[in-house]
Protein backbone atom coordinates (compact mmCIF):
# COMPACT_ATOMS: atom_id res chain seq x y z
CA UNK A 1 0.00 0.00 0.00
CA UNK A 2 1.77 3.12 -1.16
CA UNK A 3 -0.34 6.20 -1.66
CA UNK A 4 2.42 8.76 -1.43
CA UNK A 5 3.56 10.39 -4.65
CA UNK A 6 6.35 12.91 -5.13
CA UNK A 7 4.39 15.90 -6.32
CA UNK A 8 1.36 17.19 -8.22
CA UNK A 9 2.75 16.29 -11.64
CA UNK A 10 2.97 12.64 -10.64
CA UNK A 11 -0.39 12.72 -8.88
CA UNK A 12 -2.27 13.96 -11.94
CA UNK A 13 -0.42 11.87 -14.51
CA UNK A 14 -3.48 9.71 -15.29
CA UNK A 15 -5.81 12.67 -15.77
CA UNK A 16 -6.57 13.04 -19.47
CA UNK A 17 -8.40 15.45 -21.73
CA UNK A 18 -12.16 14.98 -21.63
CA UNK A 19 -12.31 13.75 -18.05
CA UNK A 20 -14.57 14.99 -15.22
CA UNK A 21 -12.73 16.37 -12.20
CA UNK A 22 -13.97 17.64 -8.85
CA UNK A 23 -11.98 20.40 -7.16
CA UNK A 24 -12.40 21.09 -3.46
CA UNK A 25 -12.53 24.61 -2.11
CA UNK A 26 -14.91 27.51 -1.61
CA UNK A 27 -13.85 30.59 -3.52
CA UNK A 28 -10.07 30.50 -3.22
CA UNK A 29 -10.24 28.98 0.27
CA UNK A 30 -8.99 25.39 0.50
CA UNK A 31 -8.31 24.89 -3.21
CA UNK A 32 -5.69 22.37 -4.40
CA UNK A 33 -3.27 24.96 -5.73
CA UNK A 34 -0.52 22.51 -6.63
CA UNK A 35 -2.70 20.23 -8.72
CA UNK A 36 -4.39 23.14 -10.50
CA UNK A 37 -0.96 24.46 -11.45
CA UNK A 38 0.09 21.01 -12.67
CA UNK A 39 -3.04 20.62 -14.81
CA UNK A 40 -2.47 24.04 -16.33
CA UNK A 41 1.12 23.04 -17.15
CA UNK A 42 0.05 19.69 -18.57
CA UNK A 43 -2.23 21.49 -20.99
CA UNK A 44 -4.99 18.88 -21.21
CA UNK A 45 -8.38 20.21 -22.24
CA UNK A 46 -12.05 19.43 -22.74
CA UNK A 47 -12.33 18.96 -18.99
CA UNK A 48 -15.59 18.98 -17.07
CA UNK A 49 -14.99 20.67 -13.78
CA UNK A 50 -17.17 20.29 -10.66
CA UNK A 51 -16.39 22.96 -8.11
CA UNK A 52 -18.45 25.38 -6.07
CA UNK A 53 -16.75 28.35 -7.74
CA UNK A 54 -14.60 29.01 -10.78
CA UNK A 55 -11.77 30.88 -9.12
CA UNK A 56 -10.84 34.43 -10.10
CA UNK A 57 -9.41 35.56 -13.41
CA UNK A 58 -5.79 34.94 -12.51
CA UNK A 59 -5.97 32.30 -9.78
CA UNK A 60 -7.51 28.95 -8.97
CA UNK A 61 -9.75 27.42 -11.62
CA UNK A 62 -9.56 30.76 -13.42
CA UNK A 63 -6.09 29.69 -14.60
CA UNK A 64 -7.62 26.73 -16.45
CA UNK A 65 -10.28 29.01 -17.95
CA UNK A 66 -7.57 31.33 -19.25
CA UNK A 67 -5.98 28.41 -21.07
CA UNK A 68 -9.38 27.28 -22.36
CA UNK A 69 -8.98 23.85 -20.76
CA UNK A 70 -12.61 23.55 -19.68
CA UNK A 71 -15.49 22.24 -21.76
CA UNK A 72 -18.03 22.42 -18.97
CA UNK A 73 -18.25 23.96 -15.53
CA UNK A 74 -20.61 22.66 -12.83
CA UNK A 75 -20.75 25.22 -10.01
CA UNK A 76 -23.06 27.20 -7.75
CA UNK A 77 -21.51 30.66 -7.98
CA UNK A 78 -19.15 32.02 -10.62
CA UNK A 79 -19.48 35.75 -10.09
CA UNK A 80 -15.82 36.48 -9.44
CA UNK A 81 -14.59 35.77 -12.92
CA UNK A 82 -14.88 37.96 -16.01
CA UNK A 83 -13.25 35.43 -18.35
CA UNK A 84 -15.79 32.87 -17.19
CA UNK A 85 -18.64 35.20 -18.07
CA UNK A 86 -17.09 35.92 -21.47
CA UNK A 87 -16.69 32.22 -22.35
CA UNK A 88 -20.20 31.49 -21.15
CA UNK A 89 -21.89 34.29 -23.08
CA UNK A 90 -19.88 33.44 -26.21
CA UNK A 91 -20.95 29.81 -25.99
CA UNK A 92 -17.39 28.47 -25.65
CA UNK A 93 -18.13 27.08 -22.21
CA UNK A 94 -21.03 24.91 -21.14
CA UNK A 95 -22.26 25.72 -17.64
CA UNK A 96 -24.52 23.87 -15.21
CA UNK A 97 -25.44 26.03 -12.25
CA UNK A 98 -26.37 23.96 -9.19
CA UNK A 99 -27.64 25.26 -5.84
CA UNK A 100 -24.80 25.13 -3.33
CA UNK A 101 -26.43 22.69 -0.91
CA UNK A 102 -27.46 20.45 -3.77
CA UNK A 103 -23.91 20.55 -5.12
CA UNK A 104 -22.54 19.52 -1.73
CA UNK A 105 -25.14 16.80 -1.31
CA UNK A 106 -24.63 15.36 -4.79
CA UNK A 107 -20.96 14.92 -3.86
CA UNK A 108 -21.81 13.41 -0.50
CA UNK A 109 -24.22 10.81 -1.85
CA UNK A 110 -21.67 9.74 -4.48
CA UNK A 111 -19.37 8.96 -1.57
CA UNK A 112 -22.13 7.06 0.22
CA UNK A 113 -23.08 4.93 -2.79
CA UNK A 114 -26.51 6.55 -2.98
CA UNK A 115 -27.60 7.16 -6.59
CA UNK A 116 -29.92 10.12 -6.14
CA UNK A 117 -31.39 12.41 -3.53
CA UNK A 118 -34.64 14.37 -3.24
CA UNK A 119 -34.15 18.07 -2.43
CA UNK A 120 -36.35 21.11 -2.05
CA UNK A 121 -33.86 23.57 -3.54
CA UNK A 122 -34.74 24.66 -7.04
CA UNK A 123 -38.36 23.52 -7.11
CA UNK A 124 -40.28 25.88 -9.39
CA UNK A 125 -37.09 27.39 -10.84
CA UNK A 126 -34.98 26.92 -13.98
CA UNK A 127 -33.00 24.33 -12.04
CA UNK A 128 -36.04 22.06 -12.05
CA UNK A 129 -36.39 21.97 -15.83
CA UNK A 130 -36.33 18.43 -17.15
CA UNK A 131 -35.95 16.90 -13.70
CA UNK A 132 -38.11 14.27 -12.09
CA UNK A 133 -40.06 15.43 -9.03
CA UNK A 134 -41.75 13.62 -6.17
CA UNK A 135 -44.17 14.77 -3.50
CA UNK A 136 -43.65 13.85 0.16
CA UNK A 137 -45.70 15.24 3.05
CA UNK A 138 -47.33 17.71 0.70
CA UNK A 139 -44.05 19.20 -0.51
CA UNK A 140 -42.49 18.82 -3.92
CA UNK A 141 -38.89 17.62 -4.19
CA UNK A 142 -36.49 17.52 -7.13
CA UNK A 143 -34.63 14.29 -7.77
CA UNK A 144 -30.93 15.13 -8.05
CA UNK A 145 -28.35 12.59 -9.19
CA UNK A 146 -25.04 11.71 -7.53
CA UNK A 147 -22.04 13.15 -9.34
CA UNK A 148 -19.85 10.79 -11.31
CA UNK A 149 -16.31 12.16 -11.42
CA UNK A 150 -13.20 10.45 -12.77
CA UNK A 151 -11.02 12.27 -10.27
CA UNK A 152 -11.54 14.32 -7.13
CA UNK A 153 -8.72 16.64 -6.13
CA UNK A 154 -8.77 18.00 -2.60
CA UNK A 155 -6.60 20.11 -0.36
CA UNK A 156 -6.14 19.32 3.33
CA UNK A 157 -4.15 20.83 6.13
CA UNK A 158 -2.52 17.64 7.40
CA UNK A 159 -2.52 14.14 6.04
CA UNK A 160 -0.75 10.89 6.82
CA UNK A 161 0.73 8.37 4.43
CA UNK A 162 -2.37 6.15 4.83
CA UNK A 163 -4.41 8.96 3.26
CA UNK A 164 -6.16 10.19 6.41
CA UNK A 165 -6.91 13.92 6.17
CA UNK A 166 -7.59 16.84 8.50
CA UNK A 167 -8.77 20.22 7.22
CA UNK A 168 -8.33 23.61 8.85
CA UNK A 169 -11.20 26.00 9.54
CA UNK A 170 -13.52 26.80 6.64
CA UNK A 171 -10.96 25.49 4.16
CA UNK A 172 -12.83 22.25 4.89
CA UNK A 173 -15.96 23.23 2.88
CA UNK A 174 -16.41 20.85 -0.08
CA UNK A 175 -13.12 19.02 0.37
CA UNK A 176 -14.24 16.05 2.51
CA UNK A 177 -17.37 15.60 0.38
CA UNK A 178 -15.43 15.48 -2.87
CA UNK A 179 -12.73 13.31 -1.34
CA UNK A 180 -15.42 10.66 -0.87
CA UNK A 181 -16.90 11.14 -4.31
CA UNK A 182 -14.19 10.73 -6.94
CA UNK A 183 -13.48 7.40 -8.59
CA UNK A 184 -9.87 8.29 -7.82
CA UNK A 185 -9.06 10.86 -5.15
CA UNK A 186 -5.89 12.91 -5.01
CA UNK A 187 -5.11 14.82 -1.82
CA UNK A 188 -2.52 17.56 -1.50
CA UNK A 189 -1.65 18.55 2.03
CA UNK A 190 0.34 21.26 3.71
CA UNK A 191 1.97 18.74 6.00
CA UNK A 192 2.37 15.02 5.36
CA UNK A 193 3.01 12.96 8.48
CA UNK A 194 3.60 9.32 9.42
CA UNK A 195 0.72 7.02 10.45
CA UNK A 196 -0.01 7.44 14.14
CA UNK A 197 0.68 11.17 14.26
CA UNK A 198 -2.99 12.04 13.71
CA UNK A 199 -5.56 11.21 16.38
CA UNK A 200 -7.91 8.54 14.90
CA UNK A 201 -10.82 10.39 16.51
CA UNK A 202 -10.03 13.62 14.70
CA UNK A 203 -9.76 12.43 11.10
CA UNK A 204 -12.08 14.30 8.73
CA UNK A 205 -11.50 12.07 5.69
CA UNK A 206 -10.63 8.42 6.39
CA UNK A 207 -7.73 7.21 4.28
CA UNK A 208 -9.80 4.66 2.39
CA UNK A 209 -11.11 7.49 0.24
CA UNK A 210 -7.68 8.77 -0.77
CA UNK A 211 -5.71 7.07 -3.53
CA UNK A 212 -2.77 9.45 -3.84
CA UNK A 213 -1.33 11.97 -1.45
CA UNK A 214 1.57 14.42 -1.47
CA UNK A 215 2.86 17.39 0.44
CA UNK A 216 2.28 20.52 -1.62
CA UNK A 217 4.63 23.46 -1.94
CA UNK A 218 4.48 27.23 -2.37
CA UNK A 219 0.91 27.74 -1.20
CA UNK A 220 -0.16 31.25 -2.02
CA UNK A 221 -3.51 31.02 -0.19
CA UNK A 222 -4.82 34.17 -1.74
CA UNK A 223 -7.54 36.06 0.14
CA UNK A 224 -10.50 37.27 -1.95
CA UNK A 225 -12.07 39.75 0.48
CA UNK A 226 -9.64 40.98 3.08
CA UNK A 227 -11.90 42.41 5.78
CA UNK A 228 -10.38 43.56 9.06
CA UNK A 229 -11.05 45.52 12.23
CA UNK A 230 -8.74 48.27 13.44
CA UNK A 231 -7.00 47.41 16.67
CA UNK A 232 -8.38 49.82 19.24
Amino acid at each position, binding site marked *: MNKVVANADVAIKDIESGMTIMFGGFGLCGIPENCIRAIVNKGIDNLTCISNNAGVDDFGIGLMLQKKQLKKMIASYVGENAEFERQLLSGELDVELVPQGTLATRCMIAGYGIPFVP*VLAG*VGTEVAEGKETVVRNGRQYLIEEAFDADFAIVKAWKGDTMGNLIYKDTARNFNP*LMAMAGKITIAEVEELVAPGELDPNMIHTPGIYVNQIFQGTDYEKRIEQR*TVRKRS
Partner: protein
Amino acid sequence: MALNKEQIAQRIAKELQDGFYVNLGIGIPTMVANYIPSGINVVLQSENGLLGMGPFPFEGDEDADLINAGKQTITTLPGSAIFDSATSFGMIRSGRVNLTVLGAMEVAENGDIANWKIPGKMVKGMGGAMDLVAAAKNIIVAMQHTDKAGNSKLLPQCTLPITGLRCVKKIVSDLGVFDITENGFVCREYAPGVSIEEIKSKTAGKLTIADDVKEITF
Protein backbone atom coordinates in the same frame (compact mmCIF):
# COMPACT_ATOMS: atom_id res chain seq x y z
CA MET B 1 -38.13 59.57 5.53
CA ALA B 2 -37.32 56.18 4.06
CA LEU B 3 -34.94 53.96 6.03
CA ASN B 4 -31.32 53.75 5.01
CA LYS B 5 -29.60 50.39 4.78
CA GLU B 6 -28.33 50.52 8.35
CA GLN B 7 -31.83 51.22 9.61
CA ILE B 8 -33.29 48.33 7.62
CA ALA B 9 -30.71 46.08 9.27
CA GLN B 10 -31.48 47.59 12.66
CA ARG B 11 -35.21 46.93 12.30
CA ILE B 12 -34.61 43.34 11.24
CA ALA B 13 -32.42 42.81 14.28
CA LYS B 14 -35.51 43.34 16.45
CA GLU B 15 -36.84 40.02 15.08
CA LEU B 16 -33.98 38.11 16.71
CA GLN B 17 -34.70 36.01 19.77
CA ASP B 18 -32.38 34.60 22.36
CA GLY B 19 -30.92 31.28 21.23
CA PHE B 20 -31.62 31.83 17.54
CA TYR B 21 -29.33 30.34 14.93
CA VAL B 22 -29.32 32.83 12.08
CA ASN B 23 -28.01 32.86 8.53
CA LEU B 24 -27.33 36.34 7.18
CA GLY B 25 -26.92 36.88 3.45
CA ILE B 26 -24.57 39.30 1.74
CA GLY B 27 -25.26 43.07 1.81
CA ILE B 28 -27.81 44.60 4.18
CA PRO B 29 -28.40 41.24 5.93
CA THR B 30 -24.74 41.13 7.01
CA MET B 31 -25.25 44.46 8.80
CA VAL B 32 -27.91 42.89 11.03
CA ALA B 33 -25.05 41.43 13.07
CA ASN B 34 -24.16 44.96 14.20
CA TYR B 35 -27.56 45.48 15.88
CA ILE B 36 -28.13 42.30 17.87
CA PRO B 37 -30.12 43.48 20.93
CA SER B 38 -28.23 43.36 24.19
CA GLY B 39 -29.04 40.46 26.47
CA ILE B 40 -29.72 38.22 23.49
CA ASN B 41 -27.41 35.46 22.34
CA VAL B 42 -27.56 34.66 18.68
CA VAL B 43 -25.31 32.23 16.79
CA LEU B 44 -24.49 33.18 13.22
CA GLN B 45 -24.21 30.44 10.64
CA SER B 46 -22.11 30.81 7.52
CA GLU B 47 -23.22 28.29 4.93
CA ASN B 48 -19.72 27.41 3.75
CA GLY B 49 -19.37 25.58 7.05
CA LEU B 50 -19.27 27.55 10.30
CA LEU B 51 -21.48 28.08 13.32
CA GLY B 52 -20.49 30.95 15.59
CA MET B 53 -19.16 33.48 13.12
CA GLY B 54 -17.25 36.23 14.90
CA PRO B 55 -16.29 39.75 13.79
CA PHE B 56 -13.65 40.58 11.19
CA PRO B 57 -10.11 39.80 12.39
CA PHE B 58 -7.81 42.52 13.65
CA GLU B 59 -5.46 43.83 10.98
CA GLY B 60 -2.69 41.30 10.47
CA ASP B 61 -4.70 38.43 11.92
CA GLU B 62 -6.48 37.55 8.66
CA ASP B 63 -6.36 33.85 7.86
CA ALA B 64 -7.01 32.69 4.29
CA ASP B 65 -8.45 29.47 5.73
CA LEU B 66 -11.18 31.24 7.68
CA ILE B 67 -13.77 33.04 5.57
CA ASN B 68 -17.52 33.44 5.48
CA ALA B 69 -19.93 32.70 2.64
CA GLY B 70 -19.21 36.17 1.26
CA LYS B 71 -15.52 35.17 1.10
CA GLN B 72 -14.63 37.78 3.72
CA THR B 73 -11.98 37.04 6.31
CA ILE B 74 -13.66 36.46 9.68
CA THR B 75 -12.99 34.96 13.10
CA THR B 76 -14.43 32.20 15.24
CA LEU B 77 -15.83 32.64 18.74
CA PRO B 78 -15.66 30.44 21.83
CA GLY B 79 -18.11 27.63 21.07
CA SER B 80 -17.76 27.82 17.28
CA ALA B 81 -17.97 24.66 15.21
CA ILE B 82 -16.64 23.97 11.70
CA PHE B 83 -18.17 21.41 9.34
CA ASP B 84 -18.43 20.55 5.67
CA SER B 85 -20.85 22.21 3.27
CA ALA B 86 -23.28 19.28 3.13
CA THR B 87 -23.69 19.33 6.90
CA SER B 88 -24.15 23.07 6.70
CA PHE B 89 -27.10 22.82 4.33
CA GLY B 90 -28.38 19.83 6.29
CA MET B 91 -28.85 22.17 9.24
CA ILE B 92 -30.78 24.57 7.08
CA ARG B 93 -32.93 21.94 5.37
CA SER B 94 -33.79 20.16 8.58
CA GLY B 95 -35.10 23.39 10.10
CA ARG B 96 -32.40 23.88 12.73
CA VAL B 97 -31.55 27.38 11.49
CA ASN B 98 -34.24 29.60 13.00
CA LEU B 99 -33.99 32.59 10.70
CA THR B 100 -32.54 33.45 7.32
CA VAL B 101 -32.17 37.07 6.23
CA LEU B 102 -31.44 37.78 2.60
CA GLY B 103 -31.78 40.35 -0.13
CA ALA B 104 -34.08 40.21 -3.14
CA MET B 105 -34.57 41.82 -6.53
CA GLU B 106 -38.29 41.02 -6.50
CA VAL B 107 -40.80 39.49 -4.10
CA ALA B 108 -44.28 38.44 -5.18
CA GLU B 109 -47.45 38.78 -3.12
CA ASN B 110 -47.51 34.98 -2.67
CA GLY B 111 -43.98 34.92 -1.23
CA ASP B 112 -42.10 33.94 -4.38
CA ILE B 113 -38.65 35.47 -4.51
CA ALA B 114 -36.29 36.33 -7.36
CA ASN B 115 -32.74 37.26 -6.43
CA TRP B 116 -30.25 35.31 -8.49
CA LYS B 117 -30.34 36.11 -12.17
CA ILE B 118 -31.07 38.84 -14.69
CA PRO B 119 -31.36 37.08 -18.04
CA GLY B 120 -28.71 38.24 -20.50
CA LYS B 121 -27.07 40.46 -17.89
CA MET B 122 -25.99 38.62 -14.81
CA VAL B 123 -24.72 35.04 -14.77
CA LYS B 124 -23.20 34.71 -11.36
CA GLY B 125 -25.13 31.70 -10.14
CA MET B 126 -27.43 31.12 -7.20
CA GLY B 127 -24.84 30.08 -4.63
CA GLY B 128 -26.75 28.97 -1.56
CA ALA B 129 -29.78 31.17 -2.17
CA MET B 130 -32.05 28.50 -3.63
CA ASP B 131 -31.26 26.09 -0.82
CA LEU B 132 -31.86 28.74 1.80
CA VAL B 133 -35.18 29.96 0.46
CA ALA B 134 -36.47 26.45 -0.23
CA ALA B 135 -35.70 25.08 3.18
CA ALA B 136 -35.32 27.77 5.82
CA LYS B 137 -38.05 27.85 8.43
CA ASN B 138 -38.37 31.60 8.53
CA ILE B 139 -37.17 34.00 5.86
CA ILE B 140 -37.00 37.77 6.14
CA VAL B 141 -36.10 39.77 3.07
CA ALA B 142 -34.17 43.03 3.34
CA MET B 143 -34.68 45.09 0.22
CA GLN B 144 -35.32 48.44 -1.42
CA HIS B 145 -39.01 48.91 -2.09
CA THR B 146 -38.45 50.16 -5.64
CA ASP B 147 -35.74 49.93 -8.26
CA LYS B 148 -33.68 52.91 -9.39
CA ALA B 149 -36.36 53.86 -11.93
CA GLY B 150 -38.95 53.91 -9.16
CA ASN B 151 -40.69 50.67 -10.16
CA SER B 152 -42.09 48.54 -7.34
CA LYS B 153 -40.13 45.41 -6.41
CA LEU B 154 -43.11 44.06 -4.40
CA LEU B 155 -45.08 42.56 -7.27
CA PRO B 156 -48.19 40.56 -8.12
CA GLN B 157 -45.75 38.02 -9.52
CA CYS B 158 -42.03 37.93 -10.15
CA THR B 159 -40.82 38.85 -13.61
CA LEU B 160 -37.23 37.68 -13.10
CA PRO B 161 -36.25 34.01 -12.83
CA ILE B 162 -37.54 32.60 -9.58
CA THR B 163 -35.21 31.61 -6.72
CA GLY B 164 -37.92 29.92 -4.66
CA LEU B 165 -41.68 29.56 -4.39
CA ARG B 166 -43.92 30.89 -1.60
CA CYS B 167 -41.09 31.14 0.89
CA VAL B 168 -40.75 34.75 2.05
CA LYS B 169 -42.57 35.42 5.32
CA LYS B 170 -41.64 39.04 5.94
CA ILE B 171 -40.07 42.00 4.15
CA VAL B 172 -38.31 44.94 5.71
CA SER B 173 -37.93 47.57 3.00
CA ASP B 174 -36.87 51.20 3.17
CA LEU B 175 -40.58 52.07 3.38
CA GLY B 176 -41.87 49.65 5.99
CA VAL B 177 -42.40 46.18 7.39
CA PHE B 178 -44.63 43.77 5.46
CA ASP B 179 -45.87 40.31 6.31
CA ILE B 180 -46.73 38.00 3.46
CA THR B 181 -50.07 36.32 4.02
CA GLU B 182 -52.70 34.52 2.00
CA ASN B 183 -53.98 37.99 1.19
CA GLY B 184 -50.69 39.26 -0.16
CA PHE B 185 -48.55 41.95 1.43
CA VAL B 186 -49.76 43.27 4.77
CA CYS B 187 -48.16 46.51 5.89
CA ARG B 188 -47.52 46.28 9.65
CA GLU B 189 -45.20 49.25 10.06
CA TYR B 190 -44.20 52.28 8.05
CA ALA B 191 -40.91 54.17 8.09
CA PRO B 192 -40.95 57.44 10.02
CA GLY B 193 -42.35 60.14 7.78
CA VAL B 194 -43.40 57.76 5.02
CA SER B 195 -47.10 58.00 4.22
CA ILE B 196 -49.43 55.08 3.69
CA GLU B 197 -50.26 56.67 0.36
CA GLU B 198 -46.62 56.48 -0.71
CA ILE B 199 -46.45 52.81 0.30
CA LYS B 200 -49.64 52.09 -1.65
CA SER B 201 -48.38 53.88 -4.73
CA LYS B 202 -45.05 52.05 -4.66
CA THR B 203 -46.42 48.54 -4.05
CA ALA B 204 -47.56 46.84 -7.24
CA GLY B 205 -48.63 43.59 -5.59
CA LYS B 206 -51.81 43.16 -3.56
CA LEU B 207 -51.43 45.25 -0.40
CA THR B 208 -53.44 45.49 2.79
CA ILE B 209 -52.72 47.96 5.56
CA ALA B 210 -52.97 46.36 8.98
CA ASP B 211 -55.59 47.88 11.28
CA ASP B 212 -52.93 48.41 13.91
CA VAL B 213 -50.29 49.73 11.52
CA LYS B 214 -47.73 51.86 13.29
CA GLU B 215 -44.49 53.69 12.80
CA ILE B 216 -41.29 51.64 12.91
CA THR B 217 -39.38 51.99 16.14
CA PHE B 218 -35.89 50.70 16.76
